[in-house]
């Protein structure tokens, strides 16, 4: 092993700045032998960003240029026209769809995260009858995609008067995230020592107080990770709202855009505002990730530090 030079570039690290291993990794990343890795990462970046780039370019085109011009560069720049049409079409219902989606994703995401944290903490740190069985069931449930449950959920919901075709019809099923519970349990196991909880108990704190004041602050990075997972899952959820909602004023944006897709009787094409609407719908998620990615990365690595 070569000795570490004193004049290393200041590479930002995950948590504490002074970890020498982190610095070493940062240094070695610049060595030529990692070129393959760099090329791979750059390739992946292009791979993931190209659709977004295409979406942006496409949202600046009118219906004809959308198909008749080269897909990865601008033609007649009509972004403002498209945006105006997007936000005024059918009485400006698009904004309503965006706000609905935000409501579903923020409320559903926050509530399901909180429930997942409580459940995950309890499964990790409290001993009670059936703990392992419950966790096994959660693990099994995490493997079932929500999409396959949409119709069964709907059939159950329709037995409850006044539930379908309301905001609740979408929110209730998303409140519980087995995958979130699973992650929360891993985070709690890894980052909260039993001694800490024992100390709090000696000090006379109630169990909820321990969860709220001792455990939860430690679990914040994991919480944000789970929130982001849930937020994105709800934001992208198409099939559940499709079956449980029928009033267009309650639709999330993806479902709303589907009401604009090809209507055989309509003598007008809406491709331009569907594409622009898709682009605008991506922006809030992108912004959220840029703001919270620091926690996201920390959260992802948290569970892997100690076993």
């Amino acid at each position, binding site marked *: 092993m070569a000795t570490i030079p004193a004049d290393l570039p200041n590479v930002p690290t995950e948590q504490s700045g002074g970890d020498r291993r982190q610095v070493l990794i940062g240094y070695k990343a610049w060595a030529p032998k990692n070129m393959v890795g760099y090329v791979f990462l750059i390739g992946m970046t292009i791979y993931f960003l190209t659709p977004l780039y295409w979406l942006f370019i496409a949202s600046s085109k*009118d*219906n*004809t240029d*959308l*198909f*008749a011009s080269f897909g990865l560069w601008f033609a007649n720049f009509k972004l403002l026209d498209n945006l105006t049409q997007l936000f005024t079409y*059918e009485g400006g219902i698009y904004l309503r769809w965006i706000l609905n989606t935000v*409501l579903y994703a923020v*409320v559903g995401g926050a*509530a399901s995260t*909180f*429930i997942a944290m*409580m459940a995950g903490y*309890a499964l990790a740190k*409290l*001993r*009670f*009858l059936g703990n392992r069985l419950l966790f096994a069931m959660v693990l099994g449930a995490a493997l079932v995609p929500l999409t396959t449950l949409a*119709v069964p959920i*709907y*059939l159950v*919901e*329709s037995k409850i008067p*006044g539930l*379908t*075709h*309301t*905001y*609740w019809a979408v*929110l209730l099923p998303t*409140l519980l995230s087995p995958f979130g519970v699973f992650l929360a349990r891993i985070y709690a196991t890894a980052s909260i020592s039993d001694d800490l909880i024992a100390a709090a108990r000696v000090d006379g704190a*109630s*169990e*909820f107080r321990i*969860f709220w004041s001792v455990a939860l602050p430690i679990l914040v990075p994991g919480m944000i990770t789970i929130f982001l997972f849930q937020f994105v899952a709800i934001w992208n959820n198409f099939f559940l709202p*499709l*079956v449980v909602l*029928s*009033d*267009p*004023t*309650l*639709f999330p944006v993806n*479902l*709303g855009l*589907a*009401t*604009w*897709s*090809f*209507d*055989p*009787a*309509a*003598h*007008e*094409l809406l*491709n331009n505002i569907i594409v622009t609407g898709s682009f605008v719908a991506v922006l809030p998620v992108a912004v959220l990730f840029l703001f919270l990615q620091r926690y996201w990365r920390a959260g992802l690595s948290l569970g892997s530090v100690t076993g």
Partner: protein
Amino acid sequence: MQHAPHRPIFAIGTALLLSLSFLLAACGTSGGGSSSGVVNLTFWSFNQQITEQAAAFNATHPNIHVTALKEPSGFGQYYPKVLAAIKAGDAPDVALIEYQYVPTFVSRGALVDLTPYGANDVKSQFDPGAWSLESINGAFYGYPQDTGPEGLFYDAKTFAKAGITSPPATWADYATDAAKIHALGKNYYISAFSATNTGWFQALEWQAGALWFSTSGNSWVVNVNSAKSQQVAAFWDNLINKGLVDTTAADGDFQPGWNAGLDNNATGKGTVIASWISAVWGQGVVKGDATHTTGQWAVAQEPQWTAGNHDAGAWGGSGISVIAGTKHPKEAAEFAQWYLTDPASLKIGVNEIGWYPSNLQARQTALSTPDPFFAGATSGGQIVDQTFANENLVQGWAFPPDLDAVTNFQGNDFNTAITNHLSLVGQLPNIQNQIISDLTSLGITATAGS
């Protein structure tokens, strides 16, 4: 075991849920409870402006209140959604159902027979071809809203460049013209041929009188492999073998390459699709896609198997049905009938939604304005709908009682044929056999017609 830890957690969870419910109660919508004897009905469609029509109905019918909801139609989600709602007992009272899905819904007991509610009183107001699509075994399952007879949209400038002076009157002419257009350049095609565009191909069979499906008593007769059906498939086999139609998947109808191909008639660069056999609603698609070719396009009747005829098959079109399980079938039937016979409703449908109406009276009023976009053959533009109004839907066509399966069998087998350079004709027996065994497995009696 320790019980103390759970209680506060549970309490907080409950508190959170309760507070959420207050939050949402504030922004939720009311279910619309029935008060003072007013019957509430829900109506699903995927057309625009349906709320205007419902408002007109509600204004003149104080005892019935219709809520019109526009549902997502793209990517084939509409029918699974309606069927799921029926299963849940949560379905709308009235819904738009396209003709091709009516037998599928009927075979699942999902539609109400409208004959007891005075359907035959207004029969004479409707296109008989459309009316027959809603009639199965003496019952009647929906008022025809719009019809999609097929014609030929063509770019007259490209046709003239190829030395074609008048649009093809017969299919033989069409084949000759296909060769002339391809002679303009390897990138020129008279049409795309998309293997998976199953409804389009069925409309071609329909026009030829190759009636794929019919009923005989309680049994379905499947006739996909008849001599007439083979004739149509062989016609397209010939064009495909000679490379005169574009079979590239990305150039199939409504695909990006095809959308661009219509507009490329302006420049002659890239793939050029010079014409499109399509239904009357296709005019909006052509105008939307080919904006650089304004004034170049024209519309003609569908090429004929027998010269001098005016036969057409239909692609698309829909009706308004009453969904089984409604608590108010009488009022729902009243709305459905009003929706497609009342002048105010039809006016909105024709002028704002863009129907080519199945109601004959409304169809006459729709035939008024020439469209300058379609000025390729007539200076000042054609009255597009007039061309279609001069055609007659071939009688006797019926759609199968399990459309989605038929779509899969036909799409997959034709796709295999195109990919492996096999004939379409060679696929017909297999498609027919698969349909019969599928229907049999559903408990529907089905026999081969040939």
